[in-house]
């Protein structure tokens, strides 16, 4: 029987409002609004960065100033006023702590509300957690266990200090500062994020997990994640995000770079439920994220994402299949409700021979929302026998929402095989009545149908996440059918 079924979930859902929409009252060390060279330098200084890092940021800032915000995505929103944002906000609590006893109790309460009591996680789920609240990484658990295997898992700000050679070697190699507007901005002002290195031949014994959370009002969050899996290693990485409910829009522009060296494998899972805005479309997070992975020979990268939050999402986790026989996968569920807009998908760039990619995208739209899949499959001239399979399914609820599919296929090698399938369906009155007749109420029925629709992707998530993801699907679609 399917373990991920929704039975316990309903019970836990007491409110229909955004569950994580609370605000932690912790003193924050926050910069005045605005962005210029001084601010970039100040951020760098605040973090005690070496000079090469400061210069790297400044270079990115220079590039960013010359760039324009992209407008090709199928989303409409009021552009963030980049000079009205504060680019640094840290809970006042400078030291990295050794034990939870030293953590601000308010903060611990926040963790509890997030449902990630660290104690619990330590004991029960064998998950190492690196928590980024606003911009500073507050607590890292499990360091010791990881140390023994030579695994490095720490805030990137620390990695810059402690492992500059690794950071310097890989930072910006997959997502260059010049890549796009938001990536450039992130490179200039990123405040923290996670760094992870798995040594040669090591299988990481636990899921590594980061929780991001935007807390302060009027701040942007720009995390930077760098995951390096050295030859023949394996790691599964989980990323979850929440943000408190606010009237104004909050900006989130992260960059994630994955590097899978020869024969390595990285599994990267995200459950994103940033505040989506209220029923009228007010507030919510702007989520403009650049995620990309590089595969060397025989390497594999899988992206799995469940996107239920944010007012505007712009996100394309991608794979560059550089090495021969490398494999890229993208499994995605994107839910939009009310006035949410999502433009999400992937890019699979096949460069090496016998490279393979799979894309499974499930879009669910309700309310007045717009949900777009945008995917590029590119087969280079050298990519003999490259293969891609793409499947994009859309599920519509009601008549006011939209689902769109924009597949781009560029094939430069004749031996390539590229397959694309797309379907659009609607939750029918007949399906709902059928469920109702069996004693299943409409909300539960929708959850059941949506879970069925999303199953192929849900099954790709690690167990703990799958349960949470199902719960989120249910929350985000509550009240979506009158």
């Amino acid at each position, binding site marked *: *029987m*399917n373990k991920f*079924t*929704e*039975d316990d979930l309903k019970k836990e859902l007491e409110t229909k409002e955004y569950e994580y929409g609370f605000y932690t009252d912790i003193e924050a060390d926050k910069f005045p609004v605005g962005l210029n060279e001084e601010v970039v330098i100040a951020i760098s200084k605040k973090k005690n960065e070496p000079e090469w890092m400061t210069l790297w940021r400044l270079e990115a800032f220079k590039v960013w100033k010359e760039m324009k915000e992209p407008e090709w995505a199928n989303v409409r929103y009021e552009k963030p006023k980049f000079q009205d944002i504060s680019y640094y906000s840290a809970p006042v609590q400078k030291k990295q702590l050794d034990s939870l006893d030293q953590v601000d109790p308010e903060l611990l309460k926040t963790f509890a509300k997030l449902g990630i009591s660290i104690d619990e996680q330590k004991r029960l789920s064998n998950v190492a957690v690196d928590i980024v609240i606003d911009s500073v990484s507050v607590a890292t658990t499990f360091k010791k266990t990881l140390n023994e295997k030579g695994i490095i898992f720490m805030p990137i700000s620390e990695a810059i200090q402690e492992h500059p050679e690794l950071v310097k070697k890989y930072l910006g190699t997959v997502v260059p500062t010049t890549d796009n507007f938001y990536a450039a901005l992130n490179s200039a002002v990123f405040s923290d994020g996670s760094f992870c290195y798995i040594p040669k031949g090591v299988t990481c014994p636990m899921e590594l997990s980061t929780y991001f959370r935007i807390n302060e009002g009027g701040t942007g969050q720009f995390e930077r994640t760098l995951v390096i899996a050295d030859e023949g290693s394996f790691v599964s990485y989980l990323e979850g995000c929440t943000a408190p409910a606010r009237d104004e829009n909050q900006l989130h522009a992260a960059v994630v770079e994955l590097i899978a060296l020869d024969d390595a494998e990285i599994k990267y899972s995200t459950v994103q439920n940033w505040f989506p805005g209220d029923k009228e479309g007010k507030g919510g997070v702007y989520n403009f994220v650049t995620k990309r992975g590089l595969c060397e020979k025989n390497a594999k990268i899988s992206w799995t994402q469940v996107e239920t939050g944010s007012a505007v999402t712009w996100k394309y986790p991608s794979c560059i299949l550089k090495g021969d026989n490398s494999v890229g996968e993208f499994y995605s569920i994107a839910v939009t409700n009310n006035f949410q807009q999502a433009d999400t998908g992937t890019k699979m760039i096949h460069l090496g021979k016998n490279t393979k990619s799979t894309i499974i995208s499930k879009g669910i739209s309700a309310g007045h929302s717009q949900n777009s899949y945008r995917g590029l499959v590119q087969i280079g001239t050298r990519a003999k026998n490259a293969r891609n399979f793409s499947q994009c399914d859309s599920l519509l609820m009601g008549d006011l929402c939209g689902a769109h599919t924009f597949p781009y296929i560029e094939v430069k090698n004749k031996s390539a095989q590229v397959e694309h399938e797309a379907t659009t*369906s609607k939750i*029918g*009155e*007949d*399906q709902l*009545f*059928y*469920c*109702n*007749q*069996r*004693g*299943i*109420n*409409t909300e*539960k029925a929708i959850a*059941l*149908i949506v*879970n*069925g*629709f*999303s*199953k*192929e992707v849900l099954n790709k998530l690690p167990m703990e996440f799958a349960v949470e993801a199902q719960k989120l699907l249910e929350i985000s679609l509550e009240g979506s059918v009158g």
Partner: protein
Amino acid sequence: MLEVKNLHASINNKEILKGINLEIKAGEVHAIMGPNGSGKSTLSAVIAGKEDYEVTAGSIILNGEDLEDLAPEERAHKGVFLSFQYPVEIPGVTVTNFIKTAINESRKAKGLEELPAKDMLKLIREKADLLEIDRKFLSRSLNEGFSGGEKKRNEIFQMAMLEPKLAILDETDSGLDIDALKVVANGVNKLKSKDNAVIVITHYQRLLDYIVPDFVHVLYNGKIVKSGGKELALELEAKGYDWLK
């Protein structure tokens, strides 16, 4: 058990049921026959509470309670079960998961705990065996790609699981081959007791050889125009409906 009194129902302002009276006691089997479009499926849907239909007059009373204000799922919780003439597909939701959800939702409505997985599994096995359903079948997506007969068999499997008070079988026999018909009819008979009742909607006398009705009603143009014992079905088989016009 069930009392339908002067029931009028319409859809899109078109009256389909034009004054139906029906009384069914616990332990009885009633067959409803009648030409295509006479309103048989409409009657079942209205009893089950489908909201597209507007009940313009009359009432439906189940065990003394007027169903008028009850949502379809609430009626289901009270023991109403409809075996659909055209069962609906739900992709990605397995037969097992669906029935498990249905059972637990009904239990929840009655203030009961969820059925432990172990007991659920046992129940599923038992009922699947009763209806000679292959285990592999249980992990398939509900009704997706099922043959006509498989769909109907699965409806009765759900009925067996839910043990309703009032089961309405809307043309459950159509699509079943002769052997399957026997299996399904046998299943229905095993589920019959003095505490529940069955309405069998069918076009063919054959099913009634296996599920023997206490009463047969003829629905014609939204009204019950004739009622009788099981021999009425034979008469209809021989003469058709014309003589009743």
